[in-house]
């Protein structure tokens, strides 16, 4: 497309007229085009054709109906994006898990191929230690859960005869505090 400036007397090409209609020429060139078309019927015709075409295209694009979005699309997209970045579908997390799996596979292969008793013994020792720690953790969790249930149960038993509404209120408070704690923890993790 030509961009050179023409003199006022020189006829413009269609490309130059389009640039003028689109406002893409300098103010000096714009003034030159205006004064030229005032005296040149063929350039004036080009100018009117281009204005009509742009107007028609604008009208056509305006007439096109937009596709209808399903209800709650924004919320669904946000949830999908959130789970994508925090879940196993997240590329970073997935990469970490794949590296760990690959390392485990390599260790297993070495153990299988070498059959080195010292290495096997060390591996079994490590495995036993991990299992032991897991067991302690699970037992602690179980004891904690039993304790929480016991406290709640006794509190509920104390309230139920007096007022069922009070027991219900206690349950609501308990569940709300759990939800609040969960929310706080997730925010802290994110930050």
């Amino acid at each position, binding site marked *: *497309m030509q961009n050179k400036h023409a003199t006022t007397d020189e006829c413009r090409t269609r*490309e130059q007229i*389009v*640039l003028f209609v*689109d406002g*893409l020429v300098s103010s000096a060139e714009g003034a030159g085009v205006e004064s030229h078309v005032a005296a040149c019927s063929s350039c004036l015709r080009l100018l009117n*054709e281009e204005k*009509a*075409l*742009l*107007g*028609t*295209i*604008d*009208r*056509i*694009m305006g*007439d*096109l*109906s*937009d*596709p209808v*979005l*399903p209800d709650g*699309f*924004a*919320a*669904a*997209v*946000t949830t*999908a*994006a*959130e789970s*994508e*970045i925090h879940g196993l579908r997240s590329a970073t997390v997935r990469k970490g898990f794949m590296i760990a799996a690959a390392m485990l596979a390599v260790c297993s292969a070495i153990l299988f191929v070498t059959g080195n008793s010292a290495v096997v013994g060390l591996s079994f020792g490590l495995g036993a230690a991990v299992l032991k720690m897991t067991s302690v953790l699970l037992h602690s969790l179980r004891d904690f859960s039993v304790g929480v249930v016991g406290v709640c149960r006794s509190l509920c038993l104390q309230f139920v005869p007096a007022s069922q509404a009070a027991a219900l209120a206690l349950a609501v408070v308990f569940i709300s505090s759990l939800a609040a704690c969960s929310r706080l923890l997730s*925010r802290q993790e*994110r*930050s």
Partner: protein
Amino acid sequence: MVVFELAKLTDIELVSIAARGREDGFEELVRRYQRQIVSYVFRMLNDYESALDVTQEVFIKVYNSLDRYNSEYKFSTWLYRIAHNAAIDNIRRRDPRAQSLETDGRDGVIRLEIETSEPSPERSRESSERRDEIRNVVRCLPAAYRELILLRHGHDLSYEEIGEVTGLPLGTVKNRLFRAREMMRQILLERGIDGV
């Protein structure tokens, strides 16, 4: 912060709070641009279900890249750029031949096939004959030309913004838009649509 306050924030402010982990900030951005993006992608792909999937994919990419957003550029331009890439990827996945469609021929004219696919159920629901006619005019344009017409006349992007979105030099944008309009003029004249 409540929803009506989020609606008053600028795009850059919303990006900033979304990047800090505020889901509602990101949701407001999605709400603000979902219509434009799904419309743009739909016109590129001519398929409603694919347009919804690609739009979701676009916003997920945006969410994952919020910390890399450069506020020197308009958020909408950045978003359209991601949508452009996603739409092109989708077209190439569906039709590997489309890979060569964006290159200029010897005479500088883009060789793109004119789409003649069957009307989608979405389209058949349209009652107005004129609307169908108009839609056909836009669909008849080769994809690379159609995109420029869409961005310029349907989404009011400037030539510079179209260059940023499509990755084309400004001169190429001007050139292709000129050709796209001329092609549209021919189609309109052939179909006897008034106004040209």
